[in-house]
């Protein structure tokens, strides 16, 4: 999101959570429904103050997280860019409707500010323990996009990206940030709307009688008109044919599920976002995401000062797992270190795509404290 021309930007000193709200509004979000939960409530409060002041903005506090995602899905069907934000226990409640959103291909954004778990766990402490839940939490085979942000400015940028991906691929997108990132106060530079590329879902160009709501297209993403626009169709969580009607015919079932996977898988190269820092010649690479990536960067700098060829691969896309970025490390890399605030969730992915090429070492922390640069440095120095 580099500036195309020199313009004066609005800047403010704010929380990561406020940056998420700012980014969502920039991306065109006009609907928020949520339920208060620590440590994500600041996003909700930001939207509560700002949405009613916009032309068509709607903010709703629902009775629980299930209803919140339900309302967001309804708004999405009615043509809005809609979002919700939550934390661990609330995210668990949303899993049922998350699967529904995948099945009906509703574009929407769920922000999960991760705290320590399981259950009520550590409500005010950071963790990164919902990574695999974001990917596999809802039942059934489904394909989703999961993103992450490591600092306040990135919260804004990734919120915009989350909406863009949701609209472009007609899918729920999850943005995982941890408590530290959401509650860190830093300078936030708000880009001018003209500098941003904003996507809005494809609209049908054919007359309503020709429209098939779940028709196969080259991109695999069917156009999606808002309810009430003249394109009357059926939406169901049952496996459906291209008209949207329930089906149990094996070929139609396969077509329904395969397209939903393919529409994301075939644009893998567009979806995977990573930042490499000194990775070109790195022999020891730290693969990290969220606030841990910031500790990682400092540790890499310190290691370089000591003469160790260290690098950092920061993951902004968590799923589909950015496998090519890891594969590119191959010529020099000997060891990959995966520090994360859980018992080892992303390291599973790293090990999976690695297939024995590099040594994979994990640093896991589950005590509600952040992973420090010195912890990572010690691991890097082991080589």
């Amino acid at each position, binding site marked *: 999101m580099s500036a195309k021309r020199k313009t004066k930007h609005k800047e403010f000193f704010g929380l990561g959570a406020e940056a998420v709200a700012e980014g969502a509004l920039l991306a065109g979000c006009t609907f928020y429904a949520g339920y208060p939960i620590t440590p994500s409530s600041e996003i909700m409060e930001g939207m509560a103050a700002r949405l*009613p002041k*916009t032309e068509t903005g709607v903010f709703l506090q629902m009775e629980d997280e299930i209803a919140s995602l339900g*309302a967001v899905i*309804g708004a999405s069907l009615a*043509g809005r860019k809609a979002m919700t934000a939550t934390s661990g226990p609330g995210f668990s409640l949303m899993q049922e409707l998350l699967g529904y959103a995948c099945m009906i291909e509703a574009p929407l954004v769920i922000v999960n500010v991760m705290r320590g778990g399981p259950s009520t766990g550590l409500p005010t402490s950071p963790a990164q323990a919902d990574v695999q839940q974001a990917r596999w939490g809802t039942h059934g085979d489904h394909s989703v996009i999961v993103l992450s942000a490591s600092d306040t400015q990135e919260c804004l940028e990734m919120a915009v990206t989350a909406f863009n991906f949701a609209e472009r691929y007609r899918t729920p997108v999850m943005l995982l940030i941890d408590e530290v990132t959401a509650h860190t106060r830093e300078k936030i530079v708000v880009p001018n709307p003209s500098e941003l590329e904003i996507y809005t879902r494809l609209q049908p160009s054919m007359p309503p009688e020709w429209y098939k709501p779940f028709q196969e297209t080259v991109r695999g993403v069917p156009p999606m008109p808002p309810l*009430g626009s003249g394109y*009357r*169709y*059926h939406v169901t969580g049952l496996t459906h044919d291209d008209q949207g009607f329930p089906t149990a015919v094996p070929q139609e079932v396969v077509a329904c599920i395969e397209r939903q996977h393919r529409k994301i898988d075939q644009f893998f190269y567009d979806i995977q976002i990573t930042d490499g820092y000194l990775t070109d010649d790195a022999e020891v690479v730290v693969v990290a995401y969220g606030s841990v990536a910031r500790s990682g960067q400092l540790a890499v700098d310190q290691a370089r000062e000591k003469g160790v060829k260290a690098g950092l691969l920061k993951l902004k896309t968590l799923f589909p797992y950015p496998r090519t970025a890891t594969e590119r490390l191959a010529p020099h890399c000997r060891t990959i270190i995966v520090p994360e605030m859980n018992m080892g969730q992303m390291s599973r992915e790293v090990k999976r795509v690695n297939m024995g090429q590099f040594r994979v070492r994990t640093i896991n922390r589950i005590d509600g404290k952040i992973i420090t640069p010195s912890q990572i440095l010690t691991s890097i120095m082991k080589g």
Partner: protein
Amino acid sequence: MAQVTQLIHHYLRHNKKFPHVLCPGCGHGIVLGSLIRSVHCLGLPKDDVVLVAGIGCSGRMAVYVDFNTVHAVHGRAIPVATGIKMANPKLKVIVFTGDGDALSIGGNHFIHAARRNIGITVMVLNNFIYGMTGGQCSSTTPEGGFSTTTPYGQMEKSFDLVDMARAAGANFVARGTVFHVRSLDKMVRTAIERPGFNMMEILTPCHTQFGRKNKYRSPVDMYKWMKSNCVKIGQYEKLKEADRTGKIPYGVFVERDEPGLEERYEALRASLRETA
């Protein structure tokens, strides 16, 4: 008859394969007919009507009609409808839901929608049983009623839907039955037309699941039961306390005229724009 068929056909989807999933003798089709007649009578364009349904037999009805139709997940039809209405208040949002869907798994959403007075019409098709899953008891199965999960009789009390909606703050609360169709049509029409949260409880027989366990083996038995036990609210109030046992009053119970949440929200936005 030909006219009625023509009307119904105008609102059915011609590209949807029939037969439908409902059993012969089921009352759900009568409710769907009532809805079609009401929409027609009110002159609502098909494009403006959104039918949101939950899971169960009532959930499967939306697919057959040529409106914007959304088949949500179990219990969550009302939140989805809330989102649709708030996103586009011009749409007429009608929810089809059952006793299990609206009162058990979706009970919390039901009372909160009534409390926030969101401008949707909720039609609860109450057949006292979980029909589609095979006849398990629901939160409206009468005390002592039999089902596959209460083989020795239901021990728990059942919900009174009308009382619940009234207490939660619904704008319009009515109960109808599929036996008394003329009054049902009238109430459905009112429930769709009015602003705010409108709740219609519609008693509909399920002889396949409820009847077979409770000595109403044929649809006719169930309709006879409905005929003899459901009385107009005016008559019900005249009955002595002792005679009221087993009788179910039908009619309009609550009529308030408070603006729906979506209207009040629009007013809020307008006032914030003015002060800005």
